[in-house]
C-alpha cells in the first residue's frame, strides 16, 4: 500500500491554479523527491497533504486513511506526518532542546536526536541565535522527535551553502539508514539529492 497517495488534486488561489489534477504515489520505505521550478505548486501540494490548505478537488490518503478532500479535513495531529517547512517555522521563544521536548513522544530520544544532528552543543540556544543550516537541522530534528513515520521536507536544502548541503544530505542518508523515518523531499533543485524516486513536475 502506498504511504502517500494523491489522487487528482487541484488547488487554486483566486484565479491562479497552483496544482491542477495532480496524482502521485509514494510507496512505503521510499525516499521520494518531487522536482519542479519555482511557482510550480510544490509547496501548495505539501500544504494540502499536511492539512494547512483544503484541496478544491481530489483526495489525499496517508497510510490508507483519507486525510484531505474538499469534504474531509483530518486534524493535523491525526495525519501522523512530520514536516520541515520551507521557512523553517521554528518557535522563537523556545530553545533548541525545548523544541524537541515539546513534540517528543519519548523524552529519552531527545538527546539522541540532538546528537545525531550535531545540535547537542546548541541545545540552550534560541532560533535567532542559530545559523541557516542549524535552523534547518533543528526543523528536521523536531520532525524526527515527533516520531512520525513519514517526513515531508519542503526545500530542505534551499538557501544553504555547499558544505551545509553535503552535511544535511549526510544527515538524511543516515536517517534513512537508521530507518527512523521516510523522507519525501519537495525541491526545485536536483543537487545530488539522495532519492529512490524522482518525480519531475510538470511531468
Amino acid at each position, binding site marked *: 500500500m502506498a504511504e502517500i497517495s494523491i489522487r487528482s488534486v487541484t488547488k487554486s488561489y483566486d484565479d491562479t491554479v497552483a496544482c491542477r489534477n495532480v496524482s502521485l504515489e509514494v510507496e512505503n520505505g521510499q525516499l521520494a523527491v518531487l522536482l519542479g521550478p519555482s511557482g510550480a505548486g510544490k509547496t501548495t501540494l505539501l500544504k494540502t497533504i499536511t492539512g494547512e490548505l483544503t484541496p478544491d478537488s481530489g483526495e489525499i490518503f496517508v497510510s490508507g486513511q483519507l486525510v484531505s478532500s474538499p469534504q474531509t479535513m483530518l*486534524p493535523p495531529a491525526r495525519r501522523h506526518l512530520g*514536516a520541515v517547512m520551507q521557512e523553517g517555522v521554528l518557535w522563537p521563544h523556545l530553545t533548541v532542546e525545548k523544541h524537541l521536548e515539546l*513534540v517528543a513522544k519519548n523524552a529519552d530520544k531527545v538527546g539522541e536526536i540532538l546528537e545525531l544532528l550535531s545540535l547537542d552543543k546548541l541545545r540552550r540556544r*534560541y532560533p535567532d*541565535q542559530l545559523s541557516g543550516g542549524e535552523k534547518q537541522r533543528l526543523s528536521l530534528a523536531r520532525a524526527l522527535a515527533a516520531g512520525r513515520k513519514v517526513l515531508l521536507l519542503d526545500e530542505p536544502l534551499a538557501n544553504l551553502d555547499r558544505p551545509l548541503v553535503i552535511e544535511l544530505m549526510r544527515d538524511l542518508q543516515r536517517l534513512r539508514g537508521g530507518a527512523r523515518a521516510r523522507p519525501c523531499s519537495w525541491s526545485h533543485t536536483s543537487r545530488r539529492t539522495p532519492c529512490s524516486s524522482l518525480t519531475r513536475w510538470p511531468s
Partner: protein
Amino acid sequence: MPYLFGSIALAGLLIFSEYGIPAMLTVNTFVGELFAFMSGFLSASNAIVFSFLMFIIILVVGWFVFRKIPVTYFFSGKQSTHRHQTFKMRGWLKGISSAYVLLTFTLVVVVPFAALVIRAFSLTGDPKADGEIFSGFKYFLEGLEYGEQDFKTTLITAPLSAVLATIIALPIARMLAFTVKRIKYMLFVFVAMTFVIPATIFGIGVLMIYNLPMFDAIYDTPLIIVFTYVGMFTPIAVLILAAGMMRVGTREEFVARLHGVGNFTAYTDIFLPRIGFEFALAFLAVLVFSMAELGATALIMPPGSSPITTGLYIMMHYGNEERVSAIALMQIMLVFIPVIMFVNVRVLLKLARRNNG
C-alpha cells in the same frame, strides 16, 4: 487622501466624545449636557433619546472612518514589516522640526506638569503669609489621607478590570485576526467604533442596565465600576491582541499540532507566549485607561466607592488647590509606575535571554 480624511474624522469624533477636560474647565459640551441630564435626573428620558441618536450618528460616521483606517496595525509595538527609508533633512529644516516637536511637548506635557509641581510643593507660596516657601511633601501626605479611600478603589478596580478585559478580549481578538475576510472586516469596524462612543453615553447605558432589580447586588458595589471599565476598554485590548496575533500568524501553532502537540498545549505553549508582549500591553492599556476614566465613572460610581479620578474631580471644585495638585501628581505616578515596570521587565527579559544563550 482617504487616510487624511479618516484621521481628521477620527480626531473629530474623539474630541467630540471627550468629557473630562471640558468638564474640568466647566465648558458646556454635548456630552457634558448629557451628563448633567443624567446625574441630576433632570430628564433621564431625554438623555436616553439623545444618547441613542448620537450612537446612530457615531455608527454611521465610524463606519466610514474605520473602513479607511486599519487601526489594528497601530497597536502592536512589534510591527517590523514597514521599515521605510528615512529622509535626510537639511540643517535648518531639522532645527525647525525639532523646535516644533519641543514646543508641542512643552505645551502639552511640560507646562501642565510644571504647574502641578509648583502647586503641589507650594513653590509660589508667600513666606511672610505662609511662613514657608517650600512645603515639602505636606500636601502629598494630606492628599493621601483625603484620597486614601479613592486610591484604594482605583487600585482594586483598575487592575481587576484590566485582567478581565484582557482575558475576555482573547477569543474576540482571535476571531478578528483569523476569521474569514468579510466577518473580520465587520468585526473590526464595530470593535474600533466603540472607541469613539462618548463615555457619558456609555455610562448612561450602564446605568440603565444595572438599574434593573436583578442587578441590585452589583449596582451598589464597586463591581459596577469594574463592569463599566471592562465594557469600555475591552475593545482596546481586542485591537492590541489582534495586532499581535496577526503578527504571529497561525503557522507556528499549526506546525506544533502537526507534530502531535495537543490543541490546548499548542495554544498555551506556542501561541500565547508569542503574543506575550501584546498581552502585557493590552493589560497595561486597560489599566491606564481605567485609572484615568472620568465620564462614565462619575455617572455610575456607587456611594462611598469613588475612584481617584472622580475623587479629584470633586476635590477640584471644593478642595484645596495644592492638595488637588499633589493628588494629581500621585495619580500620574500611579499610571507611570506600571508603564516603567513594563519597559524595564522587557529589557531584563532580553538581557536574561542573551545571557542564557
